[in-house]
Structures are given as C-alpha cells and as structure tokens.
C-alpha cells in the first residue's frame, strides 16, 4: 500500500477530484495547507508599512492506494492539478505498512478497497 500526498492549488481541487473519480478512486482526505516553493506569497501594506507573507494557501489531498494503482493515481492527480506555472504543487508517496477499516475491522489492502 502507498499513501499519495499531493499539494495542489485550491482552485484545482475540483479537477483533481474529477480526475480521481474518473480513475475509480472513491475517497480522499482533503485539508487546507499553507506553504511555498518557488512561487512566493504576497505583500500587504498597513498605514504605509509593508508586511509580506511567503506562505500561500494550498490544499493537501491524501489518497491511500494499492501499489498497482499508484502510478495511475499520481498521473491522474498531475493531470488534474497542472497549469504549467509556478505554484502547481507537489505529489509524493510513502509506503504504508497496514490499514484498518474501522467499521468492519478489515485489515491491509481489503481495508482500502
């Protein structure tokens, strides 16, 4: 099993979700995030003094998948999130040793089917 984490533009969440549904992924976890990479934040001015924030609003999308599905799911997220400009985000994966479906007690791959 793999945990895929993607940091995407807030306005791209809907297209990412649509792409994943098209790929057959039926669930995901979404949370608000802030951060920066090569794209930087904005400048604000209060009574003439400049305040700058490097942090930009982003959205973190997390999906648990089987190893066979990983490449396809990553490609789907990439297609849904891409604009070709700075600030499109990152996608990464980590290995997951086990999972439990709380309702039924199923373990491992059957917990995420």
């Amino acid at each position, binding site marked *: 099993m793999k945990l895929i984490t993607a940091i995407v533009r807030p*306005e791209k969440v809907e297209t990412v979700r649509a792409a994943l549904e098209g790929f057959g992924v039926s669930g995901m976890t979404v949370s608000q995030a*802030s951060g920066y990479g090569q794209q*930087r*934040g904005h*400048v604000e*001015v209060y009574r003439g003094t400049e305040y*700058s924030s*490097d942090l930009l609003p982003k959205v973190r999308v997390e999906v648990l998948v089987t190893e066979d599905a990983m490449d396809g799911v990553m490609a789907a997220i990439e297609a849904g999130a891409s604009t070709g400009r700075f*600030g499109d985000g990152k996608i990464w994966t980590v290995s997951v040793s086990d999972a439990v479906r709380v309702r039924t007690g199923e373990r491992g791959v059957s917990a995420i089917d």
Partner: protein
Amino acid sequence: MPEKQLGPGGNTAVVASDNERLRSPEKLSMLNGCLVVLNGLVLIGLAVVGAQERHFQRKAPKMNISLLSVGMAVDPTALDPGATAWMLAASALVLLMTPGLAFFYGGLVRMKSVLNIMMMSFGAMGVVAVVWALWGYGLAFGPDTMAGLVGDPFANPGLSGLTSSIGGKAPGLPDMVFIGFQATFAIITVALISGAVAERVRFGPWLLFAALWVTLVYAPIAHWVWGGGLFGATGIVGSKISALDFAGGTVVHMNAGIAGLMLAVVLGKRLGFMKDPNIRPHNLPFVMLGAGLLWFGWFGFNAGSELAADATAGLAWTNTLLATSAALLGWLLVERLRDGHATSLGAASGAVAGLVAVTPACGFVDPVGAILIGVVAGVLCALAVGLKFRIGLDDSLDVVAVHFVGGLWGTLSLGFFAVPSAKTEGGLFYGGGLAQFWPQFLTAVIVTAWSAIMTTLIGYAIHKTMGMRVTEASERNGIDVTEHAETAYELLMVGGTFHPGEHHAKAAPGGADPAADIPAELPAGVPAASQGDRGKVRT
C-alpha cells in the same frame, strides 16, 4: 397602606413609592426638605425656559407669530429650529447607511473580497461628497437650465452664496442642511451599484465611475423628480402628470438597481459564477449588522424627506418600521414554504426589500397600506433573486432583485395605496381609480431608460479606455490583496517579514499582482524572490 398616613399632603404618591425607608420622623423631614429643593429647581428651570422663549421671540418674531396664528403664511426664511435640528440628525442617519451598506455587502462576498466591496462604499463617500459640493448639487437643485434636464451648476459654484441662507428649499431650513442631507442620498445611491459588480472592479476606475455617474445620471434624475425639472409642476412631463416619490424610490433605488444591472452586463460575470460553490456569503453576522444599520439610517432617509419635524414625518417613520417588518416576514414566509427554512440572510434581505419599497410611499400611505406594500415587497423580491441564475447575469449581490424590483414595486404601489390628499386623488384602493398609477408607471419608465442608457455609456467608456476589471489572476488570488494590499482576516499567524518605518514604495500599481505566477518568459526554475521586482531580500 400605613405609609400613606406618613405622607404629608400632595406628596403621598412619592412617599408611597419609597415607603420602606420612611418609618422615622427625621427621615420624613429630610424627604420634605429634598422635595422643597426639587420644587425650587423646577421653578428655576421654568423661569429659564420662559426667559429663553422671550429671547427667542425677540430673535425671530415672525415665526412665532405665524405659529400662533393658524392659517397665516409662514415666512420661509425664518429659521425653524425644530426642523433644522431634526434634519441635521436625519442627515447623519442617512450617511450612516453607507457604512451600513458596506457591512451588508461585505458579509455577502467571499472573504478575499470583503475589503474591496467595503472600499467601494467608502470610496463613494469620498468622491461623491466632493463632487456634490463642487457641481453635483448645482446640477441637481440649481435653477432650471436646458429645458429642465439639469439645474445650473454655475449659479452657486462650490456652494457659494448658500452658506447662511435659509428657506431656499424648505421653509425654515438652512440651505446648507438641505445640501448636506441630499449629499448623503447621492452617496448611498452610488454605493448601492457596487453590489452588482462585486469582487471584480479596479478601485481607481470605480472612483472615476462614481464621479461621472453622479454627474450624468444621479444629478439629472434628482433634478427632474425633486429639483423642479422635467417632473416638476412646470416641467415638460410634470405639468401633465404628477407622480409621487416621497424619499427616492425612482431617484435612488430604481436608478441604482438598473445601473447595477447595466454595469454587470458591461463588465461580465465573475470567474466561476454558477460553477464555483465557494461563491457564497462569508459572514452573515456582518450582513445582519449592515441590515440593522441600514434600517436605523433609513428612518432619517424616509422621515427626513419630509424636510420638517411634523406629522407627515411621523407617518413616514412609522410606515418605515411597519413595511420593513412586514417585508421581513414576507421573505421568510417564501423561504419557509419554498426551501424549508427561514434564514438569517432572508430576514436581512427582506428587511432591505421592505425599506426600498416603502421609500417612495412612506409619506403618502396609511399604516395598513405600508404593511401590505411591505409584505408584497418581501415576497416579490424573494422570488426575484433567483432570476439572475436563469439568465446567467452575475448581479453579484442582488441589487436588481432588491433595489430595482423593490423600488419599482414601491413606486407603482402608490397607484394602489396612496391616500387622497392635496397631491393625489388617491390610489386604486382609496377611490382614485388608476389616475395615480399611470404617472407612477411613466416616471418609472423614463428614469429606468435614462439610467440604463447613460450607465451603459459611462461603463463602456471607462472599461474600453482604462479597463474596469481586475486581471483573472487578481480575481483568483483575491481582490483585497491585489487592489488594496490588505487582507481582512489573518488566519495563519505564522511566517512573513515586515519593515517597520519603511514606506512601501514598490506597491504594485493597478492590480499588478505580486502573488501572480512568474511570467512565462522568465527562465524556469528562477525563484520569484530573486527576480528583484520587489527589491527586498526575503528570509
């Protein structure tokens, strides 16, 4: 009541109300002493008042005589202190409506646009008041020129010659009070338009629009309806028909409503309109606060439009309460039956719809008429807000559905509910037939046509030359940051740098957007911070 026996003579009532402490004779005598002192104070007070009255009679004998002798003509140039005091307060009330509107609109937009929409109202307060003093008032209320199309702005340039005159516009009222009162109307009318084009207009072009619009649209219409122009008793239209508009159903609400509609057509819809579910109100308590401030200020707007402190002002005041309450209930009823829940936004919107509808009618209808006007306004406007989705027009904050529809209904409602008086034979339900309806209808059509055409011309002229819309990137990232370099809410509270005492010389002008993505021609992989466009080392 044993205490009553302790009470001496005429002070029984006072003693009875304070009976527990009056058991001992010393306390009783203390009380009597206090009462004597109090009586003395009252006598002194009466003497002072009497002296003031005598002083006043010396200062303004004409007015007091005319007040005492019923039927005698009042000298309009003699100060009426009661009316003046009320109108000074009423003008301040009307001005408060615009910050109230800023909150009402501010709550309705997304949180990345709240400062911009509030600034559109505050910007109107800045621009319109200055324009009003320099030439706007003259255009609206100066002596007739151009066959009643506008007033003469050169008769009293910069309000010269009016600073101490009394009674030019209303008996006993200093002209400066009238000018200030009317300025607050012009301000709120411009501010109302902003709701139709929320979240997408550049601030500078908006200020220019405000100046041009109040000059070319508001001032002429105010002149026709209130300034003795086209619709005045001797005007081209007014000499044939006589329409009623107590406080501005046509001049303010229909005018702003149709102007908002046309400006929304010129500028187009927001990104994601009818697609993005996040385009929805971000702070309903702001909306309720704004509606409350609007209602409060509207008492000055409506009752103040009598320009006097009299029975008609009282009627307008009470009708402003009743129609608004009824409209609030009407809107909630529609929501409960149609959607299942009575909402806070519905209550706030219904109240505003009622205020709008009763504006032209408040001094001409009776309380039951006001309630009926209000409840119809609440139902009608609640049904009208859905229309923008049918036709795909992004009237963002429903200015058309509330102000144009509400203002139209209020204007036409006088054809049904006007009480017979010196000014009208009465509406359909008050024995006047349709005699009052057709003048109301015709006035509404003329005002709508002028406002629609002129607003479209002004809007296109600014949009094609300067560009009235922000860039797509600005709209997506948030107009507060790109137009004003501020955000309303700091939600994260970590990171960032600042430079106390250093002025912000590199503020990106005109919506150039520090948060926008790096332009395509820059080499890939070069971090934004090293482009040098902001000139500051980031850590």
